[in-house]
């Protein structure tokens, strides 16, 4: 008997790890609230989940929303936007005025310090500009700032910025340019331990897990209400939703409409994404060569229906232009093409054009579903649509095919990060890569507008350009979906029109 008891021990030993796990589970379930993941954390703490680790915490190097989620709260820009109207507001600059057509004078806010004690002054601004436009930095943000040629200190709180031509978009560009401390920027820690002038200070970055911030008690502006902030990396949207339900999170972005009812609370705001289809090939003999066929496509698509059926109504129909009504360049006189199947059929005049429509899946909310619906609606009007959903990389290559190889139509989403009509409208000028459509008058109007610094004159040019584009229809206007945020029941926050997540604008119930 004794030998038998002894030899059962290996069995029991083998079971020990399982018992250990169960014990750990039961033991910790007795404790009232978890802390490591953030749930039940002390008052004054907010946890925000993003989908990926920041690629770097150098605020000038890359174009990465996960980096911005952190650095938009640590660093500040010269110019800000109002979250509800997109109007410009003073940031680190108190004013920005045109001195001559290619020089802007920036007056800086006095008595602002970086959290390491260094002064925010003209030297810091000059360095910040010089560094980001230096090709050696290889900044991926250069496409937002490529008109700036230099910066010169006038006095301690005044800087002159020069541009390569008259540039009406400069104030919008300055909402991107983060001001850094010249001395600290040269240290090895700069790309991993950011130091700015903003409402939050950097605490720790655990790669692949989280970045933690704490309120900057010496902040020059309104002091933030929330003390501790954790930005967690959770790649999977379903996990983010579950973490929200388990009270481990307070906020996450990019929720899909179907998941909204599961979140403790939600908020929506219009996104910067403009869904569209380029009627890319308008060369002679091709289906979209004539205007009537392009307009027929406009009438064939039920934009309201798309929003209702796919986005639970969370979005807006584009107003006959790929410009949102709070962006510079919006033409208030244009209305969307109505959904009118009879008119579409009349315009097609019995023709059944065969078109190839290319798109991608997974990059934007409901991109594939939107495209499938559009294809089927075009089909009802008489188009014979061949739908080709490609992998993202392949789709990007298709989008930029040279004119002689262009597909008939291709889906895209324009994201105007500068909240300005220039970039969306430039996509359809002669020589652009997105469409082969080339209208001299339109191109002249857009090119003239981008060097017209008088706001009213510039708007007049855009009103003409957008009206011409609407009539000629090289773009099938679709919708502007909303950003959908999942929130905890205790978070008080209103999402911004520029999509920035600013923790200083949040509070807790």
């Amino acid at each position, binding site marked *: 008997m004794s030998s*038998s008891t002894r*030899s*059962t021990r*290996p*069995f029991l030993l*083998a*079971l*020990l*790890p*399982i018992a250990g*796990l169960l014990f*750990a*589970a*039961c033991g*910790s379930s007795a404790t009232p609230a*978890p802390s*490591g*993941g953030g749930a039940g954390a002390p008052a004054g703490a907010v946890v925000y989940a993003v989908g*990926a*680790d920041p*690629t*770097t915490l*150098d605020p000038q*190097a*890359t*174009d990465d929303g996960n980096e911005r989620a952190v650095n938009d709260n640590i660093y500040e820009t010269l110019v800000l936007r109002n979250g509800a109207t997109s109007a410009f507001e003073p940031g680190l600059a108190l004013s920005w005025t045109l001195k001559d057509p290619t020089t802007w004078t920036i007056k800086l806010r006095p008595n602002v310090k970086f959290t390491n004690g260094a002064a925010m002054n003209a030297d810091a601004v000059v360095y910040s500009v010089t560094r980001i436009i230096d*090709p050696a930095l*290889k900044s991926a943000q*250069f*496409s937002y700032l*490529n008109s700036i040629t230099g910066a010169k200190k006038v006095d301690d709180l005044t800087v002159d910025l020069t541009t390569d031509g008259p540039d009406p978009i400069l104030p919008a560009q300055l909402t991107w340019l983060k001001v850094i401390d010249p001395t600290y920027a040269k240290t090895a820690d700069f790309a991993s331990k950011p130091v700015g002038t903003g409402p939050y200070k950097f605490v720790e970055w*655990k*790669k*692949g*897990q989280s970045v933690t911030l704490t309120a900057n008690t010496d902040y020059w502006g309104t002091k933030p209400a929330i003390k501790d902030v954790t930005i*967690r990396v*959770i*790649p*999977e949207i*379903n*996990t983010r939703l*579950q*973490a929200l339900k*388990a009270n*481990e999170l307070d906020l996450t972005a990019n929720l899909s409409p179907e998941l909204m009812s599961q979140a403790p609370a939600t908020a929506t705001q219009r996104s910067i994404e403009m869904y569209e289809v380029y009627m890319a090939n308008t060369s002679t003999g091709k289906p979209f060569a004539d205007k009537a066929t392009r307009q027929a496509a406009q009438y064939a698509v039920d934009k309201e229906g798309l929003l209702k059926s796919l986005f639970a109504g969370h979005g807006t129909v584009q107003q006959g232009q790929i410009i949102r009504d709070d962006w510079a360049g919006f033409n208030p006189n244009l209305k969307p093409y109505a959904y009118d199947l009879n008119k579409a059929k009349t315009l097609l005049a019995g023709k059944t054009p065969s078109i190839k429509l290319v798109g991608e899946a997974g990059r934007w909310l409901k991109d594939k579903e939107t495209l499938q619906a559009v294809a089927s609606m075009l089909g009802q009007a008489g188009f014979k649509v061949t739908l080709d959903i490609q*992998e*993202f*990389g*392949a789709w*990007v*290559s298709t*989008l*930029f095919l040279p004119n002689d190889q262009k597909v008939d139509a291709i889906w*895209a*989403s*324009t*994201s105007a990060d500068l909240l300005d009509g220039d*970039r969306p409208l*430039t*996509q359809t000028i002669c020589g652009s890569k997105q469409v082969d459509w080339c209208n001299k008058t339109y191109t002249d109007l857009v090119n003239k507008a981008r060097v017209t610094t008088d706001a009213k004159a510039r708007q007049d040019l855009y009103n003409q350009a957008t009206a011409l584009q609407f009539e000629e229809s090289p773009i099938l206007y679709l919708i502007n979906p909303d950003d959908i945020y999942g929130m905890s029941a205790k978070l008080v926050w209103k999402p911004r029109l520029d999509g920035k997540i600013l923790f200083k604008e949040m509070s807790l119930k």
Partner: protein
Amino acid sequence: MLTFLARRLAYSLIVIGGVLVVVFVTTRLIGDPARIILPATASQADYELQRSRMGLDQPILAQFFVFVAGAVRGDFGESLWDRGSSAMGLVVERIPATLQLVFAGVGLAMAISIPAGILAARRPRSLLDRVITLLSLAGFSVPNFLLAMVLIIVFAVGLGWFYTSGFGTIRHLVLPAVAVALPVAGRMTQFVRSTMIDEFSRPYIATARSKGVSEPAIAVRHALRNAAIPILTLGGWEFTRQLAGYTVAVEVVFAWPGVGQLASQAILRRDFTVIQADVFLVAIIVLVINLIIDLLYTVLDPRVKMV
């Protein structure tokens, strides 16, 4: 022994060379990182500038030679997104988290499957055997990402025992380890069961029984000892298989900061250098583990000779 090691090393070098070529070619087939880092509305001039900044405007052969020359020194260059960070450094700092998950997961799987397999093998076709077989089939039939989501919904959201995601404590580790373990345990239980049934039918077991050795002692000291080599082989195979990519889905669902999550991000961003460093390092680890397992055979079975 030395000739064995030399032959294995030469063989490993060939494998690594093959891995380098395949990873270089496939990363260049999945798309253009310059397009992905820029907004879709960027101009052609911006795009070409971005390409040259990423070194992608060089001829493909020149890129390949730079790549191989760096790879032999373990230098895969900078991350295309995080300029200034070495691609290999980014991968190396994620290895411990993945190792922790794989050790916990495969360890748990062995802790489940060895006793379960032995119990099932002792009375084939008994009720206990049928229940164990059914459970093990269920275990390896469930996709791990689905299992992961179910575990989160039941044990993290519903019961609140564990965290939904994240890293650091035992309460973060349990659910991902179970998600890795159950499919592995399912396969291994079946394997242990059939191996043990074979052993139980051998003459030396009958001899041991006739001498009055207790059943548990027969199972563990005699049969399991002889079944150890095939079980260890399978365990090693499961271990390397998990390391080489099967944990990616689990790491992504549980936000586990390991190489799997890094690799999936790098692929989305077309960060060539990080993907290359990742595949290279994992290939090396797999080769080393296989070598260790081969060496372990000699310990477990003196009849195995390394030639």
